[in-house]
């Protein structure tokens, strides 16, 4: 059911607090999920950039040669989360994360914690909330104290 939640583009805003930076990173732009394995994130701020994740390669700004997302465990987590959730591959998601679903159909809350050691090092938890078929918020926590809050707008 969730798989039908994202049709076409949605806008997002994101605030990241990173331990290594003096000020938070505030980003906004659009997100587009194309079945089965493409996620396009178009950032308008802090810099204009297009991140295209196809399969497990990350293409930045339309360059031809992508880099493996495995370089960035954080991205792997988000992508697995998105993909597992949005393509309806809940079982795939459950393979990488322990999942905990609360709330009801109208307002639900899904907490993901990584199972794999390699993911655990970069990621503590991913909390996804939604209303009905719509994704609303993704809150990500890293073990070093980094946090990310992404709001998905209509």
């Amino acid at each position, binding site marked *: 059911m969730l798989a039908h939640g994202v049709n076409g583009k949605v806008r997002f805003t994101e605030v*990241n607090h*990173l*331990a*290594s*930076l*003096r*000020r938070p*990173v505030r*980003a906004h732009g659009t997100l587009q999920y194309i079945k089965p*394995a493409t996620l396009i*994130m178009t*950032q308008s701020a*802090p*810099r204009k*950039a297009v*991140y295209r994740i196809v*399969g*497990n390669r*990350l293409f*930045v700004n339309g360059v031809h040669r992508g880099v*493996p*997302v*495995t*370089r*960035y*465990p*954080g*991205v*792997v987590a*988000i*992508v*697995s989360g998105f993909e597992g959730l949005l393509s309806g*591959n809940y*079982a*795939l998601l459950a*393979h990488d994360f322990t999942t905990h679903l609360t709330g009801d159909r109208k307002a639900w809350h899904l907490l993901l914690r990584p199972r794999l050691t*390699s993911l655990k*090092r*970069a*990621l503590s938890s991913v909390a996804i909330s939604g209303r009905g078929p719509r994704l609303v918020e993704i809150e*990500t926590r*890293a*073990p*070093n104290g*980094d946090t*990310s809050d992404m709001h998905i707008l209509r």
Partner: protein
Amino acid sequence: MNTRALAVGLTLSWLAVMAVLAAVIVKTGSFGGSLTAFLPSSGNTVQRALVQGLHKGEASRVLMLAIQGGNARERLKVSRALVRLLRPHKAVFALVANGGHGAARGVEGFLSRHRYLLAPRTAWTVSALRADLRRDLAILESPAGLTSGEIMADPTGALMAAAQPWMGAGGPRSRHGEWESRNGRQALLLAETHRSGFSVTPQRQALHLIHAAFAQAARDTPLTLTTAGTGVVTVAANDRVAASAKVLTLIDLVLVAGILFFVYRSVPPMAASLVPLTTGALVATAVTTLVFARLAITTLGFGTMLIGVAMDYPTYVLLHMGPGESAGTAARRVARALGLAMVAMVIGFSTMIVSRLAGLVQLGVFACAGLVASALAARYLLPSMMPAWRPSADLRAWDRRATRMMVLLRRARLASLAVAFAALGVLAYRGHDVWDDHLSALSPAPHSLMVRTGRMAAEFGVPGLSSLVVVSAASTEQALARSAALIPILEKLRKRGVVTGYQLAARYLPTLAVQRRRQQALPTNAVLQRRLHAAAARMPFRARAFQPFLAAVAQARHEALLRPSDLPAPVRARLNGLLMRVHGRVVAFVHLSGVREPRRLYAAIRASHVPGAHFVVVKHVIGGLMARYRAALLNHSIAAALLMALVVAIGLRSVREALRLVLPMAAAILTTCAILILTGPGLTLLNLVALLLIAGLGMGYALFLGDHGLIAHRRPLAPWICAATTITGFGVMAFAPVAMLREVGLTVSVGALLALIFTAAWSSGRERRAEGA
């Protein structure tokens, strides 16, 4: 009664001795079960390195697995389960991986610790650092920002650069870090065994584990598993030979037993007929395993074939028993002829022992030991085992038929001469074209499997075994330096599409000189701190975020340089396949994948002027080695034949009789060669060994057909019975589905028939006078 008790005791002690020999063989014997094992251990460094590399190299040890059917999720699940189930078998598998991360497993720590010696960076200026920090900031502000902890520990990306060779640019496509085929319909895995891909038993064990694990992981799914790789080919080839050999042996046994039963009409002599060959084979194997550290499986096969002549010995003894005579009397009667045949052959084969090719020396020892043992068994053991048995069949009619046949054949002497000259003509006309020296000519593996292995190797980006660059040098350091000098050339070739990828030791372990240069380029803590501060101006980095980086660089400035002995097991395993010590020299291999234009590669490597670097096409080098072995065997066979002729001349005290004996045999062998060349692709090593067997068989026929006073009351039927069993036995093999067995069967059966016809035609004919009188 006393003799019977003695016979039973003797038989029992013989069985006990054979059992002891078998135990000795199993206990001390080390069998090299490979096709490459019998390749000469001599040859130039490149050839030797190649044989060693083929045998033990990584490329041969990789098993490629593909899971198909079902959906992506099922495949992924089973692929992960397979890795989980197989990884604990550390004694069998050096590596099991279904993605780049798995392949670099156990290596990350090493790469991270030594990243500043392994990564090819020497620029530490403010502007270089500033470029790094800009990129880092872009990442931090991107969706990947949350991994900042790791990024700041390594802001210059040294770990990524150090891991580059491990990520495998030419590897399979991956999805979520796990491999899949290009069309996305298969999940791919690699399993690397510790033992050579050419060793049957370990490969069979590895494949068994894989299939068992898959059966467990893929229960209740529609998934299927495809395997490929050198190990799969080895096992399939072995099974194929074993399977067809089993059926053929059964048919053989029935037919040969039929002939022998017709001759003896009783079971004990039939069973006893096996005694000489069994004794010979076991003694020969035991002696060879005791003399040599390792018995090549090829020696065992070829050697047993050579001493197959011993199957004739009991026939010669038992058929020479007169009415009411004991086997002992007959054995004494034929002892001189049997002895002469055996001594001539042993002296002949002993020329192999003095050859300089390891494989031939083994074969010579095996054949000599086996022949002596079986001849002694036929002369002394066999008669004592059956002292009471007397022949009951009346074969006088058959004796007369054999004699008549010989008379007919003697009349056709001129025809046989014409055939022999025609054969000589064919051989002269085909000239050097008569040999087929490809390894594949000997390989019994099904063609479709070879094709599948090639296709999967391309899918995996696993280096092919068809061609590679070999760099020989005096030391490890020099080999690394020289092969590293090829990297820019190889990179250029890769960009032009001449190759799709390459692998070499220098990418995993830089030379000491290079490591030193990188280490000396690292700035001191104070300098680095100052430069970082300047580089990070107007960027929002916190100063303390750089602490881990500063500490790592400070440590790297004083760490010991890396040598091969310092490397962790997976790195060393990788290096062992790429860097080898061969007879005092060090050889670095450059494995190539997707070679499209061998000529351009050859030209580029040549033009590089890197000393000791050669581009080699494996097929040509192996072909050259095979040709050498074959040429040496041929030369030794010719020397052996001349020596045999000399021994026979001395034994018979007549050069004329010796020529009568040897020339028809030579004519039979030449004619067999001509027939094989006219009907097949060319002669291989196997044919050559089979021809040697024919020489041995022909010697027996000639000695027992001709009348030269060696044997009193000669039985003309004996050689015909021997030939009948040989032709039947090997004739069945000529119908085998495996080319290797077919070749041997055809050669020996045709050769034995021709040897019988030719020697009979030229035998001295006193029978005619006897009959006329």
